[in-house]
Each structure stands twice: as structure tokens, then as C-alpha cells.
């Protein structure tokens, strides 16, 4: 079922995964990618090799994916999404919000995360939110795989509901890690640049 969904997604979006100095493997990993379309997580998930995809869980917004029965079923059964609360209230710390993510990593899963936090127009990669930094601090040594999703903003842009079947492309770059004592803004910017630099990778 999952492999079939992934096949359909690859057929419709023409997506192919390209790995640059990075090997596909299952295990503790966070794929971080630019975000411009509702299709983003689907396409990244679909181009992973079957065994890797099996162990990879997208991080998604709880309010949206618990919105109705179909979404709930897709999120829990098909994609096994890790749901996060986008509006936890002021009294809740990052550790609490990110705990389900850290737990999933500790159980050996990989995560798909969009550190921009929201969809952009696809022309630029926006500044990353702090969550990625805190998550790396909670799970020391975790590999962060920069990923660039090309053309999805043209296939299904933000605010559109009809698709145009162009060819998309997914580029995975060399993994990076949070260094000892590396400061938050420096790490977030380094990760953002790693994603951005894959735009022209061939």
C-alpha cells in the first residue's frame, strides 16, 4: 500500500532522488528541506528507497492532521506522521513540544522536517525556526540531512488547489551535525545554507 502510494506520487510529480555525498540509510536522521508546497513531504517520502521510507516519519501539524477522519487515518496509518502542536501556549517549553520527535528518533526512526515552519513562494529559503536546534540538542549526534525540493512550488504552489504535472527533483546533500558548543543562530544558518546550496547541485 505504502509503496504503491509512493509510486503514484513519483509518477505524478516525476520526482527522482539524487544523493550527493550522502547514502540513503534507515536510522536516526532528520531530513530538513525547503517548504513551498503541500506536496513537499509526500515527494521527499516517496523518493526514499522502500526500506528507508519504512523507517522515515514526517513531522506534521497536529491541528491540520487531526482535522478529520481521513487525515487522521493517513497520518497515523500510511505516513506514521509525528504530530506536533503548533500552538502549545506560552507556558510550555520547547522540550515538551519536541518530545515526540526526540522519542521517535531514539526509537531509530528518521524524521522529515521543514525548519522554515511554513510554506514559502519557492524563490528563497526562509530563516529556520529554532526547533531544529533544540531537537539536535535533545538527541546528541543525530545526523541532519539537507534536502532541496525543486519545482514543487510550480507543481502545486501555495494557495492553489489544481496541480500541473511538471517534473520535480529531490537532492540530498552531505549530512551535518550540531557541533559541541555551536551557537543556535550559527547552526541554523549553516543548515539553511546547506539546503540552499543544493539548488544547483547536478
Amino acid at each position, binding site marked *: 500500500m505504502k509503496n504503491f502510494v509512493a509510486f503514484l506520487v513519483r509518477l505524478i510529480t*516525476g520526482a*527522482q532522488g539524487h544523493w550527493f555525498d550522502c547514502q540513503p540509510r534507515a536510522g536516526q536522521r532528520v531530513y530538513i528541506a525547503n517548504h513551498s508546497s503541500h506536496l513537499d513531504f509526500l515527494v521527499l517520502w516517496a523518493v526514499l528507497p522502500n526500506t528507508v521510507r519504512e523507517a522515515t516519519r514526517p513531522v506534521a501539524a497536529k491541528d491540520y492532521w487531526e482535522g478529520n477522519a481521513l487525515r487522521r487515518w493517513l497520518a497515523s496509518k500510511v505516513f506514521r506522521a509525528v504530530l506536533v502542536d503548533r500552538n502549545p501556549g506560552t507556558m510550555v517549553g520547547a522540550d515538551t513540544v519536541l518530545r515526540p520527535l526526540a522519542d521517535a528518533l531514539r526509537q531509530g526512526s528518521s524524521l522529515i522536517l521543514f525548519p522554515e515552519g511554513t510554506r514559502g*513562494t519557492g524563490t528563497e529559503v526562509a530563516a529556520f525556526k529554532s526547533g531544529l536546534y533544540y531537537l539536535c540538542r535533545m538527541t546528541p549526534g543525530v545526523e541532519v540531512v539537507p534536502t532541496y525540493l525543486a*519545482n514543487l*512550488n*510550480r507543481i502545486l*504552489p501555495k494557495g*492553489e488547489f*489544481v*496541480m*500541473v*504535472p*511538471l*517534473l520535480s527533483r529531490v537532492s540530498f546533500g552531505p549530512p551535518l551535525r550540531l557541533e559541541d558548543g555551536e551557537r543556535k543562530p550559527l547552526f541554523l544558518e549553516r543548515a539553511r545554507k546547506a539546503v540552499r546550496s543544493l539548488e544547483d547541485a547536478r
Partner: protein
Amino acid sequence: MNSPLLRLLAIIFGLLALFTIIGFILRLTVKGEGGRIVVANMNARIAAWWIMAGIMSGALLGGFAVTIVLFAIISLLALREFITLTPTHRGDHRALFWIFFVVTPIQYLLIWRDWYGMFAILIPVYAFLFLPLRIAAAGDTTRFLERTAKIQWGLMVCVYCVSYAPALLILHIRGYNGREPALLLFLLVVAQLSDVFQYVWGKVLGKHKVAPHVSPNKTVEGLVGGGLTAAAMGTSLYWATPFSPWQAALLSLLIVLMGFAGGLVMSAIKRDRGVKDYGSVIIGHGGVMDRIDSLCFAAPIFFHTVRWFWAQ
């Protein structure tokens, strides 16, 4: 084996078998790093040819409707590659939706309905006027004319021009009723043989480049040798067509020359966009557009020549 279509198909698969055997022998005998790579690439191309020939013959044997559906799919795949290479804006989204999901299906539906009058003008008249209107309505005027022109060009070349190939099936030629699929196959075979033999002659004898800046692999030797080989083979297939041998020779030459022109123009677009191939779906060949670039130019001219001189 009385039908010209079946005889043509038998010849095609016979040739493919012959090429496959030659490729196998070359793999065993050619030494050296460079030679091995050329032979491996050639064998990958031959393997892909089996698949392409299999799909095309399946469609032609499947009948009128299946053939039209196959060409509609080819158009959509080519258009997808073309538009992906074209830097369209957010404001073009709905216009693109129209050309993929409305204009292209209607164009092929018109062939199926045998409505030549509308088939010939749907894209050059109606879509031509509708597209800029739809893009203007979206409100983004940056590079308006450039964006509109590129999308219209993609629609013309990938859909309008390609659709002329299956449109051969609705030509009414005196004394040739029911054998039109053989005419379509004649066009495809000559255009593709021309590509193949230009490549082979170019690899073996090629020295003088025709257009070094546009397509470095095209040589005078390849063009002349490959073109004449393909034209000779086309002439020898006259029995499958409504033409006499010398008519078949002239029309084969026409297909060869238009095919060369198509290859050159589509290469110029690739160079401009800084890519080597339009895609990578056909192993060894690149994208769909890379395989049908010659057909885009040959099909409409071949169609209108045959229609002018032979059709009722």
C-alpha cells in the same frame, strides 16, 4: 502477412534483432575503456528501442483509439519536460493547467472525431488567443510577452506538431483505405532511422561539424550519410505507402531534412537552458522530447504534403 502494417512491423523487429546481435558481438570484441563506453551506451539505446517499438506496435495493432491515446500521452510527457525547462511564473499556473488538462485532450479528441477543420485551428487560433488572456487575467505582468510566447511555443511543438502524426490516420487517400497506420509507421520509421544512421555515420566518419555551438554531435558526414541511408530505406518501403518509389524517395528526403531541422532547433533550446537532455525517462536516450524532436518538425510538413497531393 498481407497487411503492409504487419510486414513493416516484421521488418522493424527483424532490424532490431540484427542490431541486438551486432551489439552483443561488439560487447565481446571491443577493447579499451572508450570503446566499451560507446558500445554500452549503444546497447542501452537498442534495449530502449525494443521497448519503444513494442509500445508503438502495440498501439498501432490496438487500433485507431489506442494510437491516439498513445500520442496524447507522448505529447503530455514532452510538454511536461518542455515546461519544466521553461521558467514559468506563479501567475502562469492556471494557464498551464489549461494546456495540460483541457487543450491537449481536446486536440486529440478532435482527431478521434475526424474533425480536421477544428483540429488544424484549435491551437494556432483558439489556444493562441486564450492563453495570453488567461495569463493577463492572473495579473502578473512581469515578462508577460516572454512567458506567454514560451508557453505557446511549448504547446505548438509538443502538442500541435506531434498530433499531426496520428492525424495521418484521418487522411482520406484514394485507394489506400484502411491502411493509414502503415503510413504513420512509415513516417516514424524514416524519421527514427534518420536519427539512428546520422548518429552511426557521425560516430564512424564524422569530422566536419554542422553547428558546433548548437549541437556538437551533428556532423556533415552524419547528416549526408545518415540522411541518404534513411532515404534509401524509406524508398525501399514504398510498397507500404500510397506512393510510387520515386515519390517515396522524395518524401523520405523531406522527412529526413525536417527531422534534422527539428533536432537542431530543439538542441538550441537545450543549449540555451544549459541542459544536455530534456529528461531521463528513456535509458540511453534522455527524455521523451529528445526522442521525438525530429518528429515535431517532420510530422506537420509530411502531413500537409501528403494531404495536398494525395488526399481527397
